[in-house]
């Protein structure tokens, strides 16, 4: 088993692979991240059978926490397999913060959180804002501290999909992209290494200041949302709300009671950026 270890925010991963290549790819893309001693979670990229180790290699995603019916991926998509494995450990295992399926960026010590179904553009928006003066805090999971309510960064590699790949190639620096993965279950995927400063600041939390529910593909608009609806949508966006019991409830209700929220519609990245800046300026 080839081994690679990486620290992302508060979580330390150990990734084992039956092949050398995925470990090399991970080491290259995560080169600016710290290496932990003791791993919180282990992920294993294993051959689905002895034959599939050598002929048309097929990667089964295993680890401390697994989904029994997870489909294997071809070896060329091992980076995606590792990413899915790491996400799964967080989604099923993490109990140290309230975990929301959301993205976040920071400015002036305050955090903007974006959540929504996949395809809403929350990941691409966080990546784009991360290139325009904001600090990228994470494109997949937002961790809320159970005592202080602060947003704890989880700035893993940004996972760009389909049309957002082209959009970010025009914005982000060369040399920070992973290989283009074609024909994955989610279409085309290309990983982007977050800005060096965002990685360096990955232990610094920020108080949440604004929550947005973006929707991509509609004419530019801003709407208010009732706190009751926000509550329901965030319980659905959390993988550990129920498991955390009272601590989860307290953290979530405090978040909703103190953080202003809006739904925004947009058709282009620039529109979303203008809406975000306008709402952000209105806060002060």
């Amino acid at each position, binding site marked *: 088993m080839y081994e690679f270890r990486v620290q992302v925010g508060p979580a*330390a991963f150990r990734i*084992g692979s039956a092949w050398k290549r995925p470990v090399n790819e991970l080491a290259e893309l995560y080169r600016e991240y710290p290496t*932990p001693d003791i791993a*919180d979670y*282990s992920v*294993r990229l294993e051959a689905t059978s002895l034959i599939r180790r050598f002929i048309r290699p097929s990667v089964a995603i*295993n680890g*401390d926490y697994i989904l029994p019916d997870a489909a294997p991926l071809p070896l060329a998509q091992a980076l995606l397999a590792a990413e899915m494995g790491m996400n799964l450990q967080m989604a099923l295992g993490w*109990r140290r913060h309230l975990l929301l399926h959301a993205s976040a960026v920071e400015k002036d010590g305050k955090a903007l959180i974006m959540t929504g179904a996949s395809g809403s553009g929350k990941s691409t928006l966080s990546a784009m804002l991360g290139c325009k003066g904001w600090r990228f805090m994470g494109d997949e999971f937002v961790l809320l501290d159970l005592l202080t309510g602060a947003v704890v960064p989880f700035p893993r590699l940004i996972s760009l999909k389909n049309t957002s790949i082209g959009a970010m190639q025009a914005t982000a620096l060369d040399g920070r992209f992973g290989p283009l993965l074609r024909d994955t279950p989610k279409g085309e995927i290309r990983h982007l290494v977050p800005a060096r400063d965002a990685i360096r600041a990955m232990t610094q939390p920020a108080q949440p200041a604004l929550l947005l529910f973006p929707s991509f593909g509609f004419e530019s608009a801003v709407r208010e949302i009732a706190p009751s609806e926000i509550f329901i949508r965030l319980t659905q966006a959390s993988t550990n709300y129920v498991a955390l*019991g009272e601590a989860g409830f307290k953290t979530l209700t405090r978040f909703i009671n103190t953080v202003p929220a809006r739904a925004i519609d947009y058709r282009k990245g620039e529109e979303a950026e203008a809406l975000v800046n306008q709402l952000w300026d209105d806060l002060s």
Partner: protein
Amino acid sequence: MLLVDALRDPSSTAALDADGWTALLAMARAEQLIGTLARRLSGLPVPTAVSEILEEARVNAEYQRRSALWEADCARRALVDYVGKVVLMKGTAYAAAGLMASEGRHIGDLDIMVARADLPKVEAALLAAGWEWVKDDAYDDAYYRDHMHELPPLIHKERDRMIDVHHTILPPTARPRPDATTMLADAVALEDGLYVFSHADRAIHSATHLLADGELDGGLRNLWDIHCLLTECTQSNFWSELQSRATHHDLWPAVQRAARMAHRLYGTDIPSGWRTKHWRDGYYIRRLTARDAWGRGTRPMLRLLFYVRSHWLRMPPLMLAGHLWVKWRKRP
């Protein structure tokens, strides 16, 4: 084995380096013993990274305990008009009775036992309260009803939780024939009207589950239950009672072997006359401890042997051949 040593003697972890800790945690997760390990290591000095992982395991175990007791209460309310005894089994029973075996324990499905003659009534009450069948396969359904010690599994459509309704503790096709009627009769009432088995029957059921049924998957956790159940019983006549009950249920060999293995692996204090040597115990212990530093199962040939053994124990040879034939023809 690292995990067994840590459970048996928590202070032995003082010698672990970073790789040792990572291996121990991966093994404990694979065996669903991380919550138990966290409880065993409470108060001992461990590296900061480890203490955070163990705290997470404690939070999760508390959640499992809370949801298991809630699920038991849901079943109690669904069966409130049923006059017979509803006996909680395994993890939920240990939690409801406040036993040492429940400390940090992973708890999955809800297991209950009722009188065999009452199965239709109980089944109807659960279906009316929102449980539904998991399997829609006619062969599997008929197989469960004709040859198993439990109904086909039910799942609650809103809470997504499974319940297994047993009428005895072993498939009727297995060779030992435990006396389910006596087990029910001697079950002890809890405050809320649910029941748990008597001390001796709890240990007998756990040993049966480990050794007379199944392929020893997750066996280290099961053996830890046995260690706790045997350690917690301090009445002077417990051991003779256990032996005579186990003999009555046709399960003395399983109970004796389970006690020997708990003694060998976890240092359980058992009567000196029970600490005999058996050459076959070594295979069981090698199967139980077949895990590597990544949490992967090892010793595939031994695993296969125990898999074959589990089917051999469960049904007579001709029936097994027929069952495998049907399963082979239905394979995807």
